[in-house]
């Protein structure tokens, strides 16, 4: 390697020896140049698929419906005054917060149960519990849609079996909201489970042994050892899941298509309806960008906490 440590025949470091190769050649040989060239394809992909669409969406959200005139924040102001959009904000927050809490709790419990199983049984259960997460959500949601069907569904068949009245799972606003949250939880809980399981495995056994000798009960070990040791992974999974859940599209699209009476619309499905189906692309872009500032601030706070704890050795 022709880096600064190379020694010339007369013992002079190459970096201060008289230049022999061309400037371009030397630039190409530098490690930083090589590293930049190797990451260039990735940078191009990120630039093309993330950075450009993001800024293009911002630009679009500030145009009129025919995309001929710059209207500033008019689209955002218009959306805020619209009752349906206020409902979408409420529903998105309700959907994301309750689904993330449910996924985190179920994932945490499952991870603990798996962690206590012997290694052989654990592998088998881990594989089975991950299945919901590896099936494409559009396909698994179709199965759920059938389960929720008012006339032929398995759930209502079971209810009929015990003499209960059938439930309009996807026809009643309350039950429909419950259904989309349930399916999202079913789909996302394995992700939390696997992340928490990895975090649990990384907590040294000796900390639990030290806590046992210090006098901690099982609950106190969880409270004072497990949870503080998992705070970083909990923060990151919650942040990641919150962003993905806010942006959810496929489950609502397949299960309820936003209905009944727009009562299950989220930012993603509403943006699709407004922007693509109704042909108002600038308004759709404004819908899709609405949560960005809030999520960005939330992410900054969480990541700052993660960074601080990492420096403290957690």
């Amino acid at each position, binding site marked *: 390697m022709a880096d600064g440590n190379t020694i010339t025949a007369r013992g002079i470091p190459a970096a201060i020896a008289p230049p022999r190769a061309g400037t371009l050649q030397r630039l190409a040989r530098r490690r930083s140049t090589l590293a930049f060239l190797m990451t260039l394809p990735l940078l191009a992909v990120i630039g093309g698929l993330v950075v450009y669409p993001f800024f293009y969406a911002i630009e679009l959200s500030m145009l009129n419906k025919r995309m001929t005139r710059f209207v500033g924040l008019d689209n955002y102001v218009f959306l805020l005054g619209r009752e349906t959009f206020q409902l979408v904000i409420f529903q998105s927050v309700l959907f994301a917060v309750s689904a993330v809490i449910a996924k985190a709790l179920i994932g945490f419990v499952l991870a603990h149960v798996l962690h206590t199983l012997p290694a052989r049984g654990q592998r088998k259960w881990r594989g089975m519990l991950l299945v919901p997460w590896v099936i494409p959500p559009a396909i698994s949601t179709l199965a759920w849609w059938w389960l929720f069907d008012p006339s032929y569904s398995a759930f209502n068949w079971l209810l009929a079996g015990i003499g209960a009245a059938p439930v309009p799972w996807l026809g009643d606003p309350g039950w429909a909201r419950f259904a989309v949250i349930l399916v999202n939880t079913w789909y996302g809980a394995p992700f939390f489970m696997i992340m928490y399981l990895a975090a649990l495995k990384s907590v040294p056994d000796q900390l639990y042994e*030290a806590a046992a*000798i210090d006098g901690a009960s099982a609950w106190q070990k969880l409270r004072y050892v497990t949870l503080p040791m998992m705070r970083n992974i909990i923060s990151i999974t919650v942040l990641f899941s919150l962003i993905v859940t806010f942006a959810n599209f496929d489950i609502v699209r397949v299960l309820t298509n936003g209905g009944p009476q727009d009562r299950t619309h989220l930012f993603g499905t509403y943006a699709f309806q407004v922007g693509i189906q109704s042909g108002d692309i600038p308004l759709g872009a404004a819908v899709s960008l609405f949560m960005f500032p809030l999520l960005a601030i939330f992410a900054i706070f969480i990541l700052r906490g993660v960074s601080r704890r990492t420096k403290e050795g957690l």
Partner: protein
Amino acid sequence: MAQVSLRRLVKKYEGDVQAVKGIDLEIADHEFVVLVGPSGCGKSTTLRMIAGLEDITDGEIAIGGVVVNDIPPRDRDIAMVFQNYALYPHMTVFENMAFGLTLRRFPKDEIRRRVDNAARILDIGELLDRKPKALSGGQRQRVAMGRAIVRDPKVFLFDEPLSNLDAKLRVQMRTEIKKVHQTVKTTTVYVTHDQVEAMTLADRVVVMNNGIIEQVGPPQELYHNPTTKFVAGFIGSPAMNFIPARLENGAGALRLHLPEGIVLPVPPERTKRYAPHAGQEVLFGLRPEHLTEEKPTDKANIATFQVRPEVIEPMGMETLVHFWLQGTEVSARLDPAVPAEVGRPLTLAADMNRMHLIDPRTERVL
């Protein structure tokens, strides 16, 4: 504070692997006992059974006269210092030390008093607000000891606490541990694989091998009067030389016939002890420090013989000389002023007063 009793203690793991094979041990109140032995000898398992971190397969453990077999660790009134310190990384030094007392709902003033007192003993007063990551290995070790001291338990358990420290710090912390024990006088069970640690710290050393106790005794007794080949070889550094020999009786005096024609007289005062073994093949055991250069002395029973050194290791305060007698490596400890050279004949003096004879079949010292 309390005495600790182990009675016919057995630990079996899955697949019928027996880690501890029925040991008996009585540890007195205030005593500092060190369990020493090679990896896999069962010493750590024994300590963990005393702590309650491992279930007991058979036998009994009593602390302060109370059988604790079915009592969980938190109710045994013990404190343990782990090899990798096991400090809670999210807590400050103060919180780490106070944790056990907080869980036991001690008043805040009492917690502060105890932590300050332990911090003073261990000289870590200025570290109380730091997190473990900001501490050096030695400081972490002190905090781990502090966490044990504040509890004022019946028994201290140490599981190879100095293994993660560098050689210099290990010596320093060894002294600290001894000092702390002299101050708090709590009954202590200490596990190590380092015989120097065992010898320097212990009131009594328990040498374990292959799940059993080979010998128990004060360090000097183990050094001078080992009862088995294992103990003779394990205690002392460099290890004792074991040279195959034949014990012969000639004209009322016993002699040892070593390889390469070396014949050493057995001290007359040992004749009665060894006479029944005359004519047998034995192992002649002699520590390197008892095989030195020839020097003017009025000591009786010094036998000399000539060797050709094959490896010489100058250590500063002494020189180690290694040579081979028909495939058996033998070491001698010489004064550094002795001009030893590889290949040049050297006369060595064996202090036969310190010799040991071992039966090669039973591996017991005769």
